[in-house]
C-alpha cells in the first residue's frame, strides 16, 4: 500500500454520455475524484436525444435527472463541456493529460434566462435534431441541457449580431474574448467512453437517403417523436409536414453487410420495434412494416418484442429491401424487397421510411492515444487500449443503454484498480 499512496488516484473519463456519466459517478461514489471531458456543450450524449427507452418506453431524461443530481451533490466529480483530450502521457497511477477547451462565448455567469437567444437573429442548423430544424445563433443546446448554460455559435463572432447578443445579457455572461485554451490534468487512470455515431446512411446509395426526403434514419425518428423535437412530437413527413399513416422500418441498413458494417449493431431491432409504438400511439389507424433479417430481441426483451409483434397494425417481413424510390410528386416512398417467406418481389408504398442504421464507434474516427487499440471496425480491444486506459460502452461493442451502464460500472472498478501501482 505504501506505493499506492504515492500514485494519483483520480480518474479521467473521456465522454459524458451514458457510459461516461455512469463510470464517473460510480467511481466518485466509491470515493474517487473523477473528471469528465465532454465534447458537446452538455452532458448526456446520445441518450439525451432519445425519445424513449425500450422496453419500458420511459423517457431517458428521468435517469439523466437522477445522474445529474448525483453530479451536483458530489464534490468529487468535475466536468468540462466543449472539451477534448489533446494528449495523454504517462502510466497508470501517473498520467499527464492535456485538455483543450473550445470557446462557448458564454461564461459561468450565465443564469439560463434566454435573453441572448431573443437578441440573436441568425438561424443555424441544429445538430441536436440531426438537421431536422434550425436554432438561433445563441442557444441552449436542448431544453434539459445540463449544465443549463447557453452557447453562442462561432459563426456570429465579430458581427453586429454578436454585439446585440452581448448587450442583451444583463449579467455579463456573453464573452467574445474567449479563446481556445488548454489545461493539464494529472490522473491515475483513464476511462474511454466516447460512444458511437450513427452509420452514414447516405453511403447506402440504393436507399436514397438525402435524395429521398421521406427516407430518414432511426435517430431522426427519435427526434421527430420527441416533444422537444422539431415537430413538437408529431411524426410528420419531412417533405411536406403531412400526416404519416404508414411507415416502413428497414433493418440492418448498413449493418451485417460486408460493404458497410460487417457486424450486427445489436440494438436496432429493438429500436425499430419501439418506434412502431411512437407511430401507433400517435395515430391508432397507422400501420408499420418492419423488413428484417433476424429479430434480435435477447433475454427479457423477448416479451417486448412479442407485445409489439402481436399488434395487428405491425407487419414483419423477412427480407432485405433492395431499393427505395420516392415519387417526387406525391412524396410516397416505394420499398422493393423480396419476401423470403413467399419468394415474391414486393413493391409497397409508404409515407415514411425509417432506416435502422447501425452504430459506428466514435473511436473509428477519433482513435485512442494508442493507435493499435482498435479492431478494423474501430471497436476498442480492452487488452490493447494500453495500461490504465479502460474502454467502456459502445466503443467496445454495440450495446444498449442498460449494458452500457453495466459495462461503465465495471470500467469504474478497473480504473480504480489501475490507479494503484502494484
Amino acid at each position, binding site marked *: 500500500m505504501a506505493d499506492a499512496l504515492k500514485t494519483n488516484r483520480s480518474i479521467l473519463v473521456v465522454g459524458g454520455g451514458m457510459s461516461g456519466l455512469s463510470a464517473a459517478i460510480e467511481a466518485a*461514489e466509491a470515493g474517487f475524484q473523477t473528471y469528465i471531458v465532454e465534447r458537446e456543450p452538455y452532458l448526456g450524449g446520445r441518450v439525451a436525444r432519445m425519445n424513449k427507452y425500450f422496453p419500458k418506453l420511459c*423517457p431517458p431524461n428521468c435517469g439523466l435527472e437522477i445522474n445529474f*443530481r448525483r453530479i451536483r451533490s458530489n464534490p468529487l466529480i468535475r466536468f468540462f463541456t466543449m472539451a477534448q483530450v489533446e494528449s495523454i502521457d504517462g502510466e497508470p497511477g501517473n498520467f499527464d493529460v492535456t485538455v483543450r477547451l473550445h470557446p462557448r462565448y458564454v461564461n459561468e455567469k450565465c443564469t439560463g434566462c434566454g435573453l441572448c437567444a431573443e437578441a440573436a437573429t441568425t438561424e443555424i442548423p441544429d445538430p441536436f435534431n440531426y438537421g431536422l430544424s434550425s436554432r438561433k445563433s445563441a442557444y441552449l443546446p436542448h431544453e434539459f441541457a445540463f449544465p443549463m448554460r447557453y452557447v453562442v455559435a462561432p459563426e456570429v463572432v465579430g458581427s453586429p449580431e454578436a454585439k446585440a447578443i452581448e448587450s442583451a445579457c444583463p449579467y455579463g455572461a456573453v464573452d467574445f474574448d474567449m479563446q481556445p485554451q488548454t489545461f493539464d490534468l494529472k490522473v491515475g487512470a483513464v476511462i474511454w467512453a466516447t460512444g458511437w455515431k450513427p452509420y452514414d446512411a447516405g453511403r447506402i446509395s440504393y436507399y436514397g437517403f438525402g435524395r429521398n426526403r421521406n427516407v430518414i434514419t432511426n435517430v431522426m425518428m427519435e427526434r421527430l417523436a420527441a416533444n422537444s423535437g422539431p415537430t413538437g412530437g408529431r411524426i410528420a413527413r419531412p417533405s411536406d409536414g403531412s400526416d404519416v399513416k404508414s411507415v416502413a422500418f428497414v433493418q440492418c441498413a448498413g449493418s451485417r453487410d460486408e460493404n458497410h458494417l460487417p457486424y450486427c449493431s445489436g440494438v436496432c431491432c429493438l429500436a425499430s420495434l419501439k418506434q412502431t409504438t411512437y407511430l401507433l400511439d400517435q395515430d391508432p389507424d397507422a400501420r408499420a412494416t418492419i423488413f428484417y433479417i433476424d429479430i434480435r*430481441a435477447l433475454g427479457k426483451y423477448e416479451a417486448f418484442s412479442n407485445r409489439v409483434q402481436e399488434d395487428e397494425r405491425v407487419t414483419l417481413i423477412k427480407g432485405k429491401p433492395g431499393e427505395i424510390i420516392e415519387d417526387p410528386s406525391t412524396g410516397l416512398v416505394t420499398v422493393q424487397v423480396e419476401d423470403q417467406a413467399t419468394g415474391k418481389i414486393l413493391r409497397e408504398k409508404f409515407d415514411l421510411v425509417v432506416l435502422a442504421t447501425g452504430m459506428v464507434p466514435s473511436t473509428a474516427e477519433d482513435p485512442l492515444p494508442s493507435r493499435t487499440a482498435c479492431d478494423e471496425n474501430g471497436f476498442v480491444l480492452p487488452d490493447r487500449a494500453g495500461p490504465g486506459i479502460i474502454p467502456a460502452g459502445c466503443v467496445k461493442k454495440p450495446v444498449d443503454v442498460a449494458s452500457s451502464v453495466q459495462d461503465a460500472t465495471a470500467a469504474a472498478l478497473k480504473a480504480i484498480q489501475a490507479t494503484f501501482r502494484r
Partner: protein
Amino acid sequence: MEKRIGVYICTGCGIGDALDVNALEAVAADEFSVAACRRHPFLCSDEGVSIIRRDLDQGMDTIVIAACSPRVMTDSFTFPADRVMERVNLREQVAWCHPAGEEDTRMLAEDALRMGLVKAVEMLPPDPFLADDLSRKVLVVGGGLAGMTAARETARAGYEVVLVEKEEQLGGYLKDVHKLPPVRPPYTELEDPNLDALTSEVTGDPSIRVYTGSRVASIAGAPCMFDVTIRQNGSEAMERVGAVVLAAGSVPYSPEKLDSFGFAKYPDVVTASQLEIMFKSGKVERPSNGQPVGSVAFLLCAGSRDARHLPYCSSACCVESLKQAMYFKSENPQTPVYIFYRDMRAHGTYEFLYKELQKEGVFFIRGDIEGIEDDGSGGLVVAANDVLTGSSVLTESLDLVVLANGMVPVTSFGEPFKAQSPKEGEEEAAYAPDTILVSDILNLQYRQGPELPALSHGFPDSHFICFPYESRRTGIYPAGSVRAPMDYSQAVEDATGAALKAIQCIEMLSAGKAVHPRSGDLSYPEFFMQRCTQCKRCTEECPFGAINEDEKANPLPNPTRCRRCGVCMGACPERIISFRNYSVGMIGNVIKKINVPDEYEEKPRILVLACENDAYPALDMAGIRRLSYNPWVRIIPVRCLGSMNLVWIADALSKGIDGILLLGCKHGDDYQCHFIKGSELANIRMSKIQETLNRLVLESDRVRLEQVSITDYHRLPEILDGFAARIEELGPNPYKGY
C-alpha cells in the same frame, strides 16, 4: 434555540419584474421575524453569494434563497452542511409561468416564500447514521465464472472477500466448458476458458477467503453489518461483511420437459451442456452405441421463447450453438452440421462467427421443429417446417441431436414465501407483497422474506434501464446469469460492475450516506417508538425490506438498508417516523401556512404534491418553456409520492384548500418510480381518502392523482388547468374559514 434566518431574494431573470419584492420582504419580516432579508439583482453572482457567505460567517444558521429552481445554480448555492438551506423557486415556477404583476402571481410568490420559510424553520441539518463495528468485506455467493470474477476484482481493488461455493470445486458451469466464443479479431477463433488461472488467482489471494462445499445458512443484519452464517461439512462459520454479490448462477432448463424434442426417448438427443462435457473430456461419442459422431443437428430455442416452457430468450444459446458447431467443423470440415433456428441472435461481433460457419457449410434452417424420429437404421431424422421455402424439410440420418435448452436462474426455484398473515383483528396489507421464493441461497433474516424479490421469470434483475444494478435489497447486487440470461463475457463484465457496487455501498454507508437513488443523503428516518401501535404498515410497505419486526410487531429499523424515500413515513398513521429535514409535521405545517382566501374572494387553492425527480423538473420545464398554468396551485416537492401521509390531505382540506393534486410517476408493470412502489402506494392510499372525504361530506373529486413523467411538461398546463376547472365547478371547500 431560536434560529437566525436570512432570506435572500434574487430579482434577476425576470423575477423582479414579475413580482412585488417589497411584499415578499414584508412576508419574511412580518410573519417570520427573520434576522435579515436582502435582495440582489444577480444573487448567483460572486457578489451575491458573498453576501450570503458573510451572513453565514456572522452566525446566520438558516438561509432561504428565493430565486431559481433548486435544480440549477447548485455550484453557487452550496454552503456548509451544518447550516440549513431552503430554496424557493420563484423563477421557473412563478415568474416564468405566470403573468407579471398580477395579484394571483403575487399571492403565489408570497405563499411560495412562506412555505419555504416554514420548512427552513422546521428543518434540522441531518446527523448521519454512523454505526460501530462496520465491515468492509464483500461476500460473494457462488464460485462460478461470475462469482470468481467478482471476488478477484474486489480483491484487486484492495478489499477483503468471502467466497461461498456450494460444490467442492470452484468453477461452476465453466468446469465443464471446452471453449468460449470468440471475443477478439478476427472473431472466428474460439477462446480457452483459462479456468485454472482464474481459480488459482482466487484461491491464492490471501484477501479472499474461500468456502467450498458450503452454503449460506443465514444473513442477518444490514449492509456494513451483515452477519453471515456459513455451513460447511456440518460445521458453522461466522463472517461479518459489508455487502453481497449474488452470483449463484443459473441451471440449464430441465430437458425432461422437452419430450417433443425427443429427449429421454432417444439417447442420441443430448443437451448443449452434455455435448460440452463430451468435448471437454475428449470423448465425443454417440450415447446409444459409443460410435463417433459423424453428423449432428442443433435445435435452438429448445424451451426458450416458448410460452409453455421459458417465455424469454436465453440470450446465449445461439452463439453457444454456433460455437459447438465450430467444434465439429474444426475437427472435420466434412461433418454435416444442421442448425435449426428461429432468429439467429449472433449480436455484435458474433456475426463474424455466424458468417464463418456459413462459409464452413453448416446448414442453417429457419423454422419450427415438427418432429424427431428414429429412422430405423439407428440414426435420427429431424423434420422441420422451413419458413424460408415454405416447405417441410427432413434431414439425413443424424448421429446426434443437440438441444440448446436455455438457462434458468437458481433464484426461480422454491415455494413462495408466506409473509406473516394478519392476526385476528388486523387488516390485510393494502397491496400485494413482492413474490419472494424460498430458494435457500441467501437466507436473509428480513421480515419481508429470505431472498431477493423474484421479478419477471424469477430473475432478481433491476427494473431500471439506467441503473442495471438496482436490486430491491440495499447492498446486495446480483450479477451474472442469475440476474439475467447472458453469455460468458457479459457475465465477467457484470460481475466486475457488481463488485464496484458492493465496494461503493460500503464506502457510502460507512460514511453515513445513502446509496442510489438519493446518493449521499445524510438524513435517515427515526422512529418515535412510544407512540407506535404495531400496525406493521411501515414494515410491510418499505420497498426495500429495510424494517424488521420484533415478536410484538414493533418495527426494527435498519438505517443502512434504507434508501430514504420516506415510504414508511407516508405509511405511518401515527406519524412517528421522521427525518430531521423531512417529516409529516413539517409538510403539514407548510400546508397550514398557505394563505387561503375566504370563499367570497373566489380564489380557490390547490395543493400539488410533486415527485421531486420527475414531476417537479417537469414543472420547471414548463416554466423554462414559458408555458402558463393556473395560479391557484401551491407546489410542494416530495421525495417520492409514496412519502405522502394521508394526514396532509386532511390538513389541507380542513384548512380550506379546495383541491389536492398528486403528481407521481407511472405505476404498473412498466413502473417508473425509482422507489419501486411509491406512486402505486400513493394511489392505494388515495382510495382511503374517499372515506375521509365522505366523512367530511366532501366530493372525492377534490383529490386526484396524475401519473406524469419528466417529459410530460407539455401536458401539465392541461392537467393543472383541467383540475382547477373541476374544482371551480365543485365550488369552495365548505371548511374554508373554520
